C-alpha cells in the first residue's frame, strides 16, 4: 500500500471569491440594464412574468439569480438558489472554466461552443439571456476587454454607450 494515497483536494478560495464578486456585480448590472437599455428591456419583455434564471458554477456555486416579477420588473435575487423555482439554469462546469470566462480569456459564445456550460431549461430564453449578458458586458467593460468577451462588438451611438454605462454603473453600485 506504499504506492497508494487518498486525497480530498481542497477549494480555491481566491478564485471563488473573484467569480462570486463578478457574478454579484453582473447580476446587479442586469437589473440596471433592464431599466436603462431598450434592447435588454425588449429581451425581458419577451420572457414570461415570474421567469427566473441562474448562472452558476458547478458543483457548489457561486451563483447569481435574476428574475422578472409579476409586475414585469427585473430584479437581482441574490446567490442562494435554495427554495427557489428556477426556470433556466445556466451552469458553468467548473471553477476554472468560470475563471476563463470572467477573466475574458473566453467569450460566453466560445465557452458555450467548447461545452464548458450546461443549460438546464428551454433554449430560446437561454439565447435571450446570452444576448443580455453580451450587452451588459459591453456596458461594463472597456472596449479592448469587451471585444474578448462578446461575440461581436456592437456599433452604438456615443450617448447610448456612455450615458448608459454611467447609469448602469451607478444603479449597479447602489443596487436599484
Amino acid at each position, binding site marked *: *500500500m*506504499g*504506492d*497508494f*494515497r*487518498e*486525497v*480530498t*483536494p*481542497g*477549494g*480555491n478560495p481566491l478564485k*471563488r471569491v473573484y467569480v462570486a464578486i463578478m457574478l454579484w456585480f453582473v447580476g446587479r448590472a442586469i437589473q440596471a440594464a433592464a431599466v436603462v437599455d431598450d434592447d435588454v428591456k425588449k429581451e425581458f419583455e419577451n420572457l414570461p412574468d415570474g421567469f427566473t434564471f441562474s448562472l452558476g458554477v*458547478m*458543483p*457548489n456555486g457561486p451563483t447569481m439569480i435574476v428574475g422578472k416579477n409579476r409586475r414585469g420588473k427585473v430584479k437581482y435575487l441574490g446567490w442562494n438558489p435554495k427554495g427557489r423555482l428556477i426556470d433556466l439554469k445556466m451552469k458553468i*462546469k*467548473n*471553477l*476554472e*472554466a468560470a475563471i*476563463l470566462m470572467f477573466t475574458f480569456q473566453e467569450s460566453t459564445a466560445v465557452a458555450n461552443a*467548447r461545452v*464548458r456550460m*450546461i443549460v438546464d431549461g428551454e433554449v430560446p430564453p437561454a439565447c435571450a439571456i446570452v444576448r443580455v449578458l453580451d450587452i451588459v458586458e459591453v456596458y461594463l467593460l472597456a472596449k479592448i476587454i469587451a471585444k474578448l468577451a462578446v461575440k461581436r462588438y456592437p456599433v452604438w451611438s456615443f450617448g447610448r454607450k456612455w450615458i448608459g454605462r454611467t447609469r448602469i454603473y451607478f444603479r449597479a453600485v447602489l443596487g436599484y
Partner: protein
Amino acid sequence: MFLPAQYEFFCPVKTNSGNRALEHLPVELDALNARKPLIITSKDLSGRGLADVMADAFKDSGLTLGIFDGTSPAPDLKLIRELTKIYRHKGYDAIIALGGGSVMDAAKALNIVVSGRPEDLERAAGEDRMMKPLKPLIWVPAGEADGYESSKYATIGPLNFSSPYLMPHLVVLDPRMTIQENIEKTAASALIVLTHAVEAYTGPAKNPMTDAYAYAAIALIMTHLMDVMKIFQNEKGCLDLANAASMAGCAFSNSPKGLVHTLGSALALACGLSPGLCMGILLPYGLEYNTQKHGFHTLELLMPLAGPDVYAGTAGSLRSRKALDILYDLQDKLVQASGGMVPRKLADMKVPKEKLTEIAQTAGGENITGWEGGLSVLEQAWQGKPATPTS
C-alpha cells in the same frame, strides 16, 4: 469516399480535449454516475508532478480520490490483485488511468475484475469474451501514447484481452499532461499510431467511419511529429500527437490487425525491440507489398499524408508511389532528427537475418497474407531497399 457493401463500426469513446480539459472530470464522472475515482499511474509520471496536477483539477468538487502510482512497465496479475484490494476496500466506483500503455493495461484488467468477480479476468482473456459493459473507465494520456490505450485491446502478462467493452468511456487530453520527455519513445509511439491509422485507412475493413478517425490521426502525425522531434516542449504538437493516438486506437479497434502490425509485433517480441520502431521501419515496405498484391487504397492515402495541395498536384497514376515516397522520406527525417536513435533499417537494429523466416512464420499465423509475403517485406526492410526504387 469508399463505402463498402457492408461494414460495422463501434466507438463508445467520448473525447474531451484542450485547455483545462482535466477540470471537466468531476462533471464527467457525475454523468457516469461515479463519485469516488481511483487514479492509476506510474512512479515516473507521479514524480513529474502530474498526479498532483490531476488532483488539483478536482479542487472545489468535494470528491475524494485514490492515487496509486506503483504501476510497473509490465503489469502482472499480482499488481491487479493489489489494485483490486484497494478498489474494493476503499469503495471506489470509477478508474482513471493517467499515463500510457502499461497504466491503461492495468486499468483495463482491473476494470474486468471489479466489474465482476476476480476469476473473471482469466475467463475474459481472448476475443470478445465479455458480455456486459464494465465500470466507468477514463483515460488521461500522459507522456507517450501509442493508441492501444483507447483501443479494445489489453495485455496482462500472458493474458491478451479483446473486447469493445475495454474501450474507455472518456478520453481527456490536456496539454499539461501530454508533454513528452523522451525523443526515441516519442518517435516509437507516433510510428505505432501512424501504422495503425494507415493500415485502417488502406485495409480491407476500410469504411467512412474508420476513415474519419484514421484520416485525422495520419494528418495530425504528419503535421506535428517532426515539430515535436525538433522542439520537445511543444505543447500544441504533443497534444495533437496524443489526439492522433486516441483516434488511431478507435480506428484500430474497428479494423483487422494489418500486415505491418503483426510483423512488427512478432519482430519486437522475438528480438526484444521497440514495437514502434519495428513498425515504423516496416510500414512503407508492408504498404508497398499490400499495394502490389491486393491493390489496397494507397492512392487516397496521399491526401492525409501530404495534404490537398500535393494530392491535387500529383497525377492519379502516381499518387500511390508518392504516398510511399513520403513514408520513406519520413524515415530519413526521423533518423536525422533523432541523431540516429531512430533506425532506418532492420539491420541497423542488429536483427539477425537468419531469424527473419521464423519471425515471418510466427506472424503469418495471424495474418491473411501468409508468411512468404511477410518474409519478403522483412527482407526488404532489413536491407532498407524498397521493392521498387523510390522516385
